[in-house]
C-alpha cells in the first residue's frame, strides 16, 4: 500500500540538486579562502616545532574523545559521566596490544573498540531506562565500579609504575616523532568528524535528536527510544575507546590514576566542559573546544595560578553557554559566518575586530605572565 502511495501522487522529478548531505558545497571565493586558512592553521604546529605538534596532537586526541560526548549528550541528550572509563580501556588495551604483543596501532584500536562493546552494552542495558540525572548517576556509579575493579588490577594497568605505549611505525613511515604523530591524529580526528557528521544526517542520527527533544513524540514517530539510546551509548563508547588508544600513544607512559576515581579526578568534567563550550551539537564542537582550552593551558603551563584562573573562567563560560548559547562556539561561528556572507563589509569588519581584540587580550596576558 505504501508503494502505491508514491504512485498515486508521484513525487516531483528529482531536482538536479537534491539536498543530499555529505556533498561538498559549491566552491566559491569565501569557502576556498576559509579552507586554505584552516588548512594552514592545521599544519601550523608542524612548523612551530615538536612541542607545538605535541599540543596539536593532544587537541586532536581530546577532540576524538569529545566526539563521544557529542553523540551521547549533544545528539541524544543523555549525560554520560564515564567517558574516561572508555578512554582508560583504550589506553591500557593499546599498552598491551601495541607494546607487548607488537600489533599495528589500527588493529589495536579495532580490538579496543570491540572490547568496549560488552562494557557499554552492560552499562547501557541497565541504564537506558533511566532518564536525566538518574542516567548520569548510573554512569558515574559504573565509572567508579570500573575504577575499583578493572583499573585496580595490576596485570591490566601495570600497577603504580604504569605501562609503556609505543608510537607506531607504518612500514617505512616512522610516526614516533611528535610531528608525525600529530599528522596521524589529525587525519584520524578528521575522519571521525566526517563519520559522526554522516551519522547525524541519517535515520539513526535523526532518531537520536528526536529522543533528545521529546521521547514521547519520538516514539509516536516510530523511534525505538531505548534502542536509540543504547546505540548512541555503544557508538559513543567505541569512539571514546579509540580516543583512548591514541591518548596512550600520545602520552607513551600511562598510569591508572586518572581512571580510578572518575568524578574527583576532574578530567571527565573538563572534557564535558570543553565539548559544551565548543558546541556539543556539532561534530566540530569538541575540536574547537579542545583547541580553545588546550592552547591556553599549554601557553600558560608554567603559570599554575593562571591555569586555574582559566579553568574558573572556562567553567563560567560553560554555564553561560548552557544558559544563553546552546550551540556553543561552533554555533556562534556558523551564525557569524552567515552574517558575514550576508553583509561582508559591515559584519566582516566587526568580526575581524572581535577576533583581533581577543588575540590582543590573549597576548597581553601572555606577556604579563612571563
Amino acid at each position: 500500500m505504501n508503494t502505491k502511495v508514491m504512485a498515486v501522487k508521484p513525487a516531483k522529478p528529482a531536482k538536479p540538486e537534491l539536498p543530499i548531505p555529505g556533498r561538498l558545497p559549491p566552491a566559491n571565493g569565501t569557502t576556498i579562502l576559509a579552507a586554505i586558512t584552516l588548512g594552514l592553521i592545521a599544519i601550523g604546529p608542524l612548523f612551530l616545532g615538536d612541542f607545538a605538534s605535541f599540543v596539536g596532537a593532544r587537541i586532536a586526541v581530546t577532540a576524538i574523545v569529545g566526539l563521544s560526548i557529542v553523540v551521547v549528550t549533544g545528539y541524544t541528550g543523555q549525560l554520560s559521566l564515564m567517558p574516561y572509563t572508555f578512554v582508560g580501556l583504550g589506553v591500557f588495551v593499546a599498552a598491551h596490544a601495541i607494546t607487548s604483543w607488537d600489533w599495528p596501532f589500527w588493529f589495536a584500536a579495532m580490538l579496543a573498540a570491540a572490547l568496549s562493546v560488552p562494557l557499554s552494552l552492560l552499562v547501557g542495558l541497565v541504564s537506558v531506562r533511566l532518564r536525566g540525572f538518574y542516567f548520569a548517576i548510573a554512569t558515574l556509579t559504573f565509572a567508579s565500579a570500573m575504577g575499583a575493579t578493572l583499573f585496580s588490577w595490576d596485570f591490566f594497568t601495570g600497577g603504580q609504575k604504569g605501562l609503556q605505549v609505543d608510537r607506531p611505525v607504518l612500514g617505512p613511515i616512522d610516526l614516533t616523532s611528535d610531528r608525525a604523530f600529530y599528522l596521524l591524529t589529525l587525519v584520524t580526528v578528521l575522519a571521525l568528524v566526517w563519520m559522526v557528521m554522516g551519522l547525524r544526517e541519517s535515520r539513526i542520527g535523526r532518531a537520536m535528536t528526536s529522543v533528545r527533544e521529546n521521547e514521547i513524540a519520538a516514539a509516536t514517530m516510530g523511534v525505538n527510544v531505548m534502542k536509540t539510546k543504547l546505540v548512541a551509548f555503544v557508538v559513543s563508547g567505541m569512539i571514546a575507546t579509540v580516543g583512548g588508544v591514541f591518548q596512550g600513544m600520545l602520552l607513551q607512559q600511562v598510569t591508572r590514576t586518572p581512571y580510578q576515581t572518575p568524578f574527583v579526578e576532574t578530567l571527565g568534567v573538563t572534557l564535558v566542559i570543553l565539548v559544551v563550550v565548543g558546541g556539543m551539537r556539532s561534530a566540530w564542537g569538541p575540536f574547537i573546544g579542545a583547541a580553545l582550552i588546550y592552547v591556553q593551558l599549554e601557553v600558560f603551563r608554567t603559570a599554575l595560578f593562571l591555569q586555574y584562573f582559566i579553568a574558573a573562567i572556562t567553567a563560567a563560560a560553560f554555564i553561560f553557554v548552557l544558559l544563553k548559547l546552546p550551540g556553543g562556539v561552533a554555533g556562534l561561528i556558523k551564525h557569524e559566518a552567515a552574517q558575514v556572507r550576508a553583509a561582508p563589509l559591515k559584519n566582516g569588519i566587526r568580526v575581524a575586530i572581535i577576533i583581533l581584540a581577543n588575540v590582543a587580550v590573549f597576548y597581553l596576558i601572555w606577556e604579563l605572565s612571563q
Partner: protein
Amino acid sequence: MTLLRTEGLKLRFGGVVALDDVSISIDEGEIVGLLGPNGAGKTTLFNVISGLLKPESGRIELGGRNITRALPYERALAGLGRTFQHIKLFGSHTVEENLLAAQHRHLSSSTLAAMLRLPSWRRDEVEARRRVDAVLELINLERYRHHRPAELSYGTLRFVELAAVLSLQPRLLLLDEPASGIAQREAEALGPLLREIRDVLGCTIFLIEHDMPLLLSVSERVYALDFGQVIAEGEPDEVTADDRVLSSYLGRTRRDDVAAR
C-alpha cells in the same frame, strides 16, 4: 475492510472511569469523527490506541493485527500516525528535519552505513527528501522548509505537525483537535485538505475536533463519547440529533452554547 477495531477497552484513573467498554471499528479509507464534551475520554482513547496508555482490558487491532501489547513506536511502524492537542514538534529541528525524523517507517540504512556513507545510506536520504518534497507540496509549506518551529505562528505549526505525521505515511491518522488555535480561514481550508489527504495518500482519518461545523462536514461517520462510553454512532446528522448526545452536552455546558454550534 476494517482497519482499526477496538473491543471493550476499559481504563480507570484512580476511581474515575476514563474508558468504559469502548468498541469502535473504522474501515479503510473512511474519515471518522469523535465528539463528546470535555473530559468524555476522547484524548484518552487516542492515547490508548497509540499506546501511550495501557488499557486494563480490551483489545486493539490495526489492519487485522493485534496491537494491544505493542509499544508506541511499534504501532507507528505498523502505520499509525497521530498528532497531539498540544503540538509536539522537535524544537531545534527545522521543518524539513521534523519531516525527515518521521520517516523511520520507510528507512533502513544502518549506523555503519551512515558513518561510512555507503550507497544504502545515500539511497535512503534521497528517498526521504523526495517524500519531504511531496508532503511539503501537498500541504503547501514549501516556503517554511528551513524555518524552526519557534519562528512560525501557531496556526502554521498545526500544519507542520500534520505534514510531519504525513511523512510517516500512516495507514491510520489520528488527529487530536487539528483546528484548535488556528485562524477561521485556515480552519475552513482544513476540511477540503483532510479529504485531499485521504484521497491522495489513501490514509484513513480518525479525528477529535471541537469545531463542530468542521467535524460534521468532513466526517463520513461519527462516534459520540461521554463518561468514557460510546453513546452514539452513525452519520453526522443522526448522531447530532440523538437525545443522549444532546443531553451529554447540555449536562455540562450552557444551552445557548450548544445552540450556537
